[in-house]
Every structure is written in C-alpha cells, then in structure tokens.
C-alpha cells in the first residue's frame, strides 16, 4: 500500500538559515509526489510536485524539493527561511489504480517554526 512518512513533528530554524522538511514514501509504481502548506485556520495550498523529469523541483515562495528514488525521499528545502514560512507542511503521494482512479495519501504533517 502507498504511504508517506514525515519523521519530524516540528522543525525549528533561524530566519535566513536553510531549511529542510523531510518526507519518505512508499509506492508500488511511479510516484506522484506533492508538498502542501497550511496556514492557521486555512485549507491546504499547493507548493510543488514531482511527476517525472528533473530530481530538483522548484515551487512557490522559493521552495524546492529533491526527489531521490534510491532513498524514496522527497525532502522540501528552502535556501533562506523567512518568519512568514512558519506553517504546517504536508507531503503527499498519489495512489493511482489500474482503472485510472486515484486517491491522495498525506503524511502526518511537520510544523515549521522560523525564529527571527
């Protein structure tokens, strides 16, 4: 079965420092991977995705993610964190069945705190 793991409940980083939010996945076929961000009392907003192609994916707000097939990881990164990046981040994998239907499976989420 498809699954997603975010091993860190919380990540703390100082403003201006690089940040990494970790994600590992398990899929039976080609992975369709996504990162979303959630600000307080809001729904999830899409940040970036990996479908195929370059292992380094660039997304919104200066975020990028590195796909590593051998380590089955899709870590979210940003070279220089901002206080406004403080939020809850979710990694997700799409489970596509043979009939073409699909579900999206989410990790437990990682709360990012960026300190000024």
């Amino acid at each position, binding site marked *: 079965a498809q699954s997603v793991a975010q091993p860190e409940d919380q990540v703390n980083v100082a403003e201006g420092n690089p940040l990494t939010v970790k994600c590992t996945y398990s899929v039976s076929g080609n992975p369709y991977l996504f990162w979303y961000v959630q600000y307080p009392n*809001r729904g*999830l907003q899409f940040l970036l995705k990996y*479908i195929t192609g370059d292992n380094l994916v660039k997304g919104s707000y200066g975020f990028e993610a590195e796909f590593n097939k051998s380590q089955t990881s899709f870590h979210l990164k940003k070279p220089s964190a901002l206080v406004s990046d403080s939020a809850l981040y979710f990694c997700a994998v799409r489970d596509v069945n043979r009939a*073409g239907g699909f579900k999206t499976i989410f990790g*437990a*989420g990682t709360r990012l705190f960026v300190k000024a």
Partner: protein
Amino acid sequence: DVKVTQSSRYLVKRTGEKVFLECVQDMDHENMFWYRQDPGLGLRLIYFSYDVKMKEKGDIPEGYSVSREKKERFSLILESASTNQTSMYLCASILRGSYNSPLHFGNGTRLTVT
C-alpha cells in the same frame, strides 16, 4: 482560479445532533473529497465522489455519510454527532483523470461537538 467553498468556518453542535457540512466548487470538477484533519494524524480520507450520485468510502467512513446530488456540491453528513468527531474537516476537488495535478482545497470547517 478554482474556488472551493465550505459553507461554515466554525460549527458547534451537541452530541446526537445531525450535522451537515457543505462544500461547493466552481470549476466543474468530477472528483470531490472529504478529509478530516487531526494533530499528529495528518489528513484522513472519509469519503470521495467521482461523479453525481456516486460515492466511495475512504479510510475512515464510520459515523459519516455523503450526498452528491449536483456536480458542484458535495455534502458530508454526521448522522448523530459524537465528541470524537470534533475535528477540522477539509473538502477538496480535482478534475477527473488529473492524477498529476494538485487537489484544490476549501478553507476548512472546524467542528466542535459538545
């Protein structure tokens, strides 16, 4: 731009009440989903629908039902609310077959059952 609207941001209901959570999307999406979000558990799929009058159980359907009478509207129903259904509920939609596209989410309904 796709808009997914959940009718209530906050709801407070009593144990045993029947509760309706409404979700409307304006982009003619066939697929709609209801998730609940709890700290440390991420998002868990309750029900989804891939067309009008069609519904499929997700991972945690117990205590819930859904209705999809029109393409743009997907309702989540708690037949008899219980305190363990206190949670954040998120609705999402996507075009059929768009498995390489992200879900579009509403802003959520925070339900408290007392």
